[in-house]
């Protein structure tokens, strides 16, 4: 609960939140337009180190906005520690989800040519010999009486 703060302090916090979130959003968009080459002719951060720095900045700003919304607008800062941990700790599972799925997507993209070649290869190469890994029962999968 926000009971720790006086009414005037609460109102100040709301104003601070509005200024903070608004300012971060404006800074984000200005950096985005600069990085994508819309603000200064011939200047952009679309490649290499500049691009990674740009992405890290954007993700950092967004995480800070998320922190502020959760802790001050949603009052998580004033909840007991157990509630905070029980809501926030499970989200750390997403770290692995991001690593695993992005790795998978990247591998899929890198092997696109290989997949295309294998799909276009003659049919005899694709189904050479018997299927492996399982045994087809005599008379097929469905037993006929």
């Amino acid at each position, binding site marked *: *609960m*926000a*009971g720790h703060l006086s*009414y005037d302090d*609460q*109102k100040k916090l*709301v104003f601070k*939140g*509005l200024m903070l*979130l*608004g300012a971060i*959003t*404006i800074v*984000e*968009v200005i950096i*985005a*337009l600069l990085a*994508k080459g*819309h603000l200064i002719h011939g200047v952009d951060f*679309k490649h290499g180190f500049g691009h990674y720095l740009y*992405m890290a900045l*954007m*993700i950092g700003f*967004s995480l800070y*906005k*998320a922190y502020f*919304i*959760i802790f001050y*607008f*949603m009052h998580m800062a004033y*909840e*007991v520690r*157990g*509630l905070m941990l*029980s*809501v926030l700790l*499970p*989200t750390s599972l*997403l770290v692995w*989800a*991001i690593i695993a*799925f*992005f790795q*998978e*997507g*990247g591998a*899929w*993209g890198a092997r*696109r040519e290989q997949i295309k070649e294998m799909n276009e290869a003659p049919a005899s190469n694709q189904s050479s010999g018997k299927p492996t890994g399982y045994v087809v029962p005599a008379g097929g999968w469905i037993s006929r009486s």
Partner: protein
Amino acid sequence: MAESSVSHSHDAHGHTDDTKLWDGGAEPMKASYGKLMMWYFLLSDAFTFAGFLIAYGALRFSMPTWPEPDFVFASFPFVHAHWPLIFVTFMTFVLIFSSVTMVRAVQEGHRENQRGVVFWMLLTVIGGATFLGCQAYEWTTLIVKENMSVSRNPFGRHIADGVYLNADGSESATFKKNDSYLLHIHDGKVEGLAYNNADGHSVNHEGTALRYTSGPNAGRTAEAEFGPKAFGALFFFITGFHGFHVFSGVLFLTIIMLNAAGGLYAARRNGYEMVEKIGLYWHFVDLVWVFVFLVFYLL
């Protein structure tokens, strides 16, 4: 079911406290039952959205090209020039403002100030409805004007340097690898494309013929192709799912505002807890938008 009926009937074993327990009388984390469950609902919803956004990232990494957000999202009402990302920035501000008015409504609720609660909730509802209107404009532009759908994405990017070709085979403007274009579709047929020149102005080109001057296909002629169609499906699905959250949020905010105006929560004398709970939901909608904004428009 059986248990709750027992607890309500004050059985012979003297378990009269059960009623209080189930009504949230004992608060395990100093939060009422409803508030705690709202937090866990939002946690599960966060996983749903995270799943969608991670799918976006995985599919994007699996594609050789991906549409450029500042080229795709460059429309602004009544403006014909390209204003990249400005309209979604406006939408972001609408949601931030409605989040702020929601915090004010919750604060007035703690003070049992009925008029204050209704006033700030009304502003929040207006903010939510404005956001939905903006989204309707954005979707209409993409669907009607630019012919994007869940299975068709006219926004592409070149895989190598090259030059556009006129109908008679002569060379037109040149383009670079990763430059964006928008296919023009008329009656279901691709008739031409639009691209931005070096000054950022949109240029229309008849036909889609081009010749690559770099990469493994250098010297060959080709047609500009559709962009990865997963982009359209992901855009409409994820922003649609978020918009549905905003829509249901506006409905619940309206219902709770009317209840507050009718004095229902004042009679409960619990600091307008219902307003606090819908407030949590509404801030979550803003929170999700922070990441939708990041993933779709900034990165």
